[in-house]
C-alpha cells in the first residue's frame, strides 16, 4: 500500500501533533522558530566578531549557541514524532479503521516509540513538514488565486493539484522548491525522468546505464531532500488520480483529443491578442497548454502562427499515468508562474526589482524560466562567431560557476555575498540593540547614565545607519547576482535542450530515410530515387542546432530539390541555407519540413504509386 496521498489532503494544511505517550515531546510552539533561529544566528555572528576585541560576551554567545542547538533538536524531535504519527495514521486507515485497527497500530508502533498511542487517527494527516505547525490562512486575494488556478485543472488531477497550489500560494518556500524541482526534472532525459519519478521504488540493482544513474544522482543532489519529497508527492498524487481509471483504455479518446485541441486554440487565440507579451505570459500559456495535455517541448512550433493547428498542438501520447505526470508538472509550472504574476500585480515594484540586471530583491519563490528557445540559441551562436554550442555551454558553465562562487563563496578562500550579508545583518542587529539600549538609558537611566548614553547615542546611530546601508547594498548585490545566475542556468538549459532536440531530429530523419528506401525498393520500385537516398547522410550541423543533409553529389542534391519542385513541394519551404562551398549539403533549419518534403517526393512518385509500405 501507499501511505503518502493521505497526508496531502486538500484543504487541511494544518499540521497536527499528538501527545505520543510519556516520552512524546510537546508540539513546537507557534512562535515563528525560523525567525528566532535567524535572529540568533545573526546575533551570534556579530557577537563573535566583538569577542575579538573583548571576550566578556562569552556567555551571551554561549547562550545563543545553546538556544540554536535546542531549537534544532526540538525541530528534529518534532519531525520524528510527526513521521511516526503520519505513518501510524496511514497504517490505521490501511487496516480499515476501527478499534481493532487502532489497537494493532498502537501495538506495532510501540516498538518504534515506546508507549505510543494514536489518539486522533482520523485527524492525523497533512503534517509533512513539522515546521509548518501554524495553519496558514490564505488572504482573500490568495484564495481567489487558488480558485482561479484550480479552475483550469482537469477534474481527475484537481485533488492532487489543490494541495500543491494551496501550499505554494501560502508558502513561498514551497513555490521555490516546486520551481527548482520542476526545472531540474525538465532537464533529465526520458529514462532518467522515469527513474526520478520512481523515487524510492527505484531499483539500483537494475541494469541502469552509468549515464542515467549519474543523471539521477545529479538530480537528487540538485533538488535536495525537499525536492525529493515534492517529487514523491507528485508521484503519489498522480497515482491517486489514476486510481479508478486503471481499467480504462489509456489512450486518448477522439473526443478528448478534439476538446484539448479546441481549448488549446482558444488559449493561443487569447494570447495572440496581447500586443507585446512578456516572457512570463508566454510561459504561462505553455504551462496552460501542458495542463491540457498538449506537447509543448517545442515552444517555437507551438507559437508558430504559420503552422496548421494540428502541427502546433500535438497531444502528448502515453498512458493515463504518464500524461497525468506531464500535466501535473504543467500545473507546478503554472502555479509558480502565476504566483510571480500575482506578486507583480500586487506590487508592480516587484517586477522592476526582479528584472535581471536590476538591483533589488527577487520575489521569493518566483523565478523566471530563463528559457531562450531555439531562436535565442541561434542568435547567441551568431553573436559568438566561431563558437559551437558545446563551446558556448562551456563558457556559460564557467560563468555560472563564477556566479555561484560569488553568491555562496569558496571557503575558506572567499566568503561569498550570502555570508557577507549574513554577517552584515548580524552586525546590523547588534548595532540596533546597542542604539535601543542607549536610547532607553538616555530616557530612564540615572542622570550620569543619561549623559553618557546621549553622548554615545549619536555615534551608535551613525554606526547603525552604516550597517543598514551595508546590508541594503549586499541585498542588492545578491539579487543582481542571483538574477545573473538564473539567466545563465536558463541559457545553458536552452542550449542543451536544443542540442538534444537536434540529436532526436537526426535519428528521426535517419529512420524516415531508411523507411523510404525500403518502401522504394518494393515493387514496382524506383531504383533512381533509392540510389539518391542511398547517398544521403544526416548529421547535426556544426552549430549543434540545425541538421545537415549531405547528398552523394551536387547533382543528387539538385535532383532532390527538383523532385520537390515537381511534386508541388516548394523547395524554399525547406528553410535551407544553401552552402555554396559544400554544394552537396542542405542545411536544414527545420527537420520536420524536410521530412514532409521527403514524404511528398516519395508519395507522389508515379512509379511508387502502387507500392505499399514494406512495414
Amino acid at each position, binding site marked *: *500500500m*501507499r*501511505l503518502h496521498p493521505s497526508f496531502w489532503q486538500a484543504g487541511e494544511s494544518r499540521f497536527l501533533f499528538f501527545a505520543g505517550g510519556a516520552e512524546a515531546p510537546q508540539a513546537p510552539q507557534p512562535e515563528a522558530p525560523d525567525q528566532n533561529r535567524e535572529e540568533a544566528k545573526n546575533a*551570534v555572528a556579530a557577537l*563573535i*566578531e566583538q*569577542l*575579538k*576585541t*573583548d*571576550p566578556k560576551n*562569552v*556567555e551571551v*554567545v*554561549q547562550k545563543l*549557541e*545553546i*538556544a*540554536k*542547538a*535546542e*531549537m*534544532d*533538536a526540538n525541530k*528534529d524531535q518534532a*519531525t*520524528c514524532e510527526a*513521521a511516526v504519527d*503520519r*505513518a501510524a495514521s*496511514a*497504517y490505521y486507515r*490501511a*487496516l480499515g479503521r476501527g478499534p481493532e485497527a487502532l489497537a494493532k497500530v498502537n501495538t*506495532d508502533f510501540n*516498538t*518504534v*516509540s515506546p508507549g505510543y498511542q494514536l489518539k486522533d487517527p482520523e485527524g492525523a494527516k497533512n503534517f509533512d513538514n513539522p515546521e509548518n505547525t501554524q495553519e496558514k490562512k490564505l488572504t482573500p486575494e490568495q484564495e481567489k488565486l487558488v480558485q482561479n488556478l484550480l479552475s483550469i485543472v482537469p477534474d481527475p488531477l484537481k485533488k492532487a493539484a489543490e494541495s500543491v497550489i494551496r501550499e505554494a500560494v501560502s508558502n513561498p518556500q514551497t513555490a521555490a522548491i516546486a520551481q527548482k524541482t520542476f526545472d531540474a526534472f525538465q532537464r533529465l532525459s*526520458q529514462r532518467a525522468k*522515469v527513474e526520478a*519519478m*520512481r523515487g*524510492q*521504488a527505484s*531499483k539500483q*540493482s537494475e541494469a541502469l546505464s552509468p549515464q542515467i544513474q549519474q543523471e539521477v544522482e545529479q538530480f537528487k543532489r540538485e533538488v535536495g*531532500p525537499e525536492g525529493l519529497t515534492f517529487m514523491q508527492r507528485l*508521484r503519489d498524487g*498522480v*497515482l491517486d488520480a*489514476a*486510481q479508478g481509471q*486503471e481499467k480504462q483504455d*489509456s489512450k486518448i479518446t477522439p473526443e478528448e483529443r478534439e476538446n484539448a485541441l479546441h481549448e488549446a486554440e482558444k488559449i493561443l487565440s487569447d494570447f495572440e491578442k496581447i500586443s507585446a507579451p512578456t516572457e512570463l505570459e508566454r510561459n504561462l500559456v505553455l504551462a496552460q497548454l501542458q495542463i491540457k495535455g498538449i506537447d509543448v517541448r517545442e515552444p517555437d512550433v507551438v507559437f508558430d502562427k504559420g503552422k496548421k493547428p494540428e502541427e502546433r498542438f500535438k497531444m502528448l501520447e*502515453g*498512458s*493515463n*499515468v*504518464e500524461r497525468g*505526470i506531464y500535466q501535473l508538472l504543467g500545473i507546478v509550472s503554472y502555479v509558480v508562474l502565476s504566483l510571480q504574476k500575482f506578486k507583480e500585480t500586487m506590487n508592480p515594484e516587484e517586477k522592476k526589482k526582479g528584472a535581471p540586471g536590476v538591483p533589488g530583491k527577487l520575489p521569493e519563490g518566483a523565478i523566471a524560466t530563463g528559457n531562450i528557445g531555439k531562436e535565442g540559441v541561434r542568435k547567441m551562436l551568431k553573436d559568438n562567431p566561431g563558437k559551437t554550442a558545446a563551446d558556448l555551454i562551456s563558457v556559460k558553465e564557467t560563468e555560472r560557476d563564477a556566479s555561484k562562487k560569488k553568491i555562496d563563496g569558496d571557503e575558506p578562500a572567499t566568503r561569498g555575498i550570502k555570508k557577507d550579508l549574513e554577517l552584515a545583518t548580524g552586525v546590523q542587529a547588534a548595532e540596533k540593540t546597542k542604539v535601543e539600549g542607549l536610547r532607553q538609558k538616555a530616557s530612564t537611566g540615572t542622570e550620569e547614565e543619561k549623559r553618557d548614553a546621549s553622548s554615545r547615542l549619536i555615534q551608535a546611530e551613525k554606526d547603525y545607519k552604516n550597517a543598514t546601508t551595508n546590508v541594503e547594498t549586499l541585498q542588492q548585490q545578491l539579487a543582481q547576482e542571483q538574477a545573473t545566475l538564473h539567466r545563465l542556468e536558463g541559457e545553458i538549459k536552452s542550449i542543451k535542450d536544443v542540442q538534444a532536440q537536434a540529436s532526436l531530429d537526426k535519428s528521426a530523419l535517419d529512420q524516415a530515410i531508411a523507411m523510404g528506401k525500403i518502401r522504394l525498393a518494393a515493387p514496382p520500385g524506383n531504383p533512381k530515387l533509392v540510389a539518391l537516398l542511398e547517398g544521403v547522410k544526416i548529421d547535426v550541423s556544426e552549430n549543434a542546432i540545425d541538421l545537415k543533409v549531405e547528398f552523394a553529389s551536387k547533382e543528387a542534391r539538385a535532383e532532390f530539390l527538383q523532385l520537390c519542385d515537381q511534386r508541388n513541394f516548394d523547395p524554399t519551404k525547406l528553410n535551407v541555407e544553401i552552402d555554396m562551398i559544400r554544394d552537396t549539403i542542405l542545411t536544414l533549419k527545420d527537420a520536420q519540413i524536410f521530412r514532409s518534403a521527403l514524404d511528398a517526393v516519395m508519395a507522389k512518385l508515379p512509379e511508387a504509386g502502387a507500392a505499399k509500405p514494406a512495414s
Partner: protein
Amino acid sequence: MSDPQKSSGIPQKPPFKSGAEIFDGIMMEIEPELTTTGSQALEEKYKNETPEQKKARGERYAKAFEEYEKRYAAYRLEQESQVHAFKRQVIHFAEDRSNGDDQQRLFSLESALGSA
C-alpha cells in the same frame, strides 16, 4: 522490492540531546574554557590579565566559536540525515505491516513511463 529501507526492521529514532549537551559536547573538544561549566570560572581566572592578554584571549575565543560553528554545521548534517532516514524507515515500517500492496500500481507506473 529490494529497497534496503524496507528490510531494516524497527526504525531507531536518532538520539536527542538538549541544547546545552550538544554545545558542551562539541565545545569540550575545541576550548573547554567555553563550555557551560568552564565559562563560570573565567572572571576569576583572568581577573589580572593585561589588555594585550585580554585581546589575545578574545581572538582565541572568537576562533573557537568559529570552529564550533563549523563542527555544529557538520553535526547538523549528520543529525538531519539520521532524521531523514528515520522518516523513510518509519513509512516503510508501516508499509511492511500493512496488508495492502501497491507494488502492482508502482509496476503500472514504471511500465507506463518505461514505454515512453
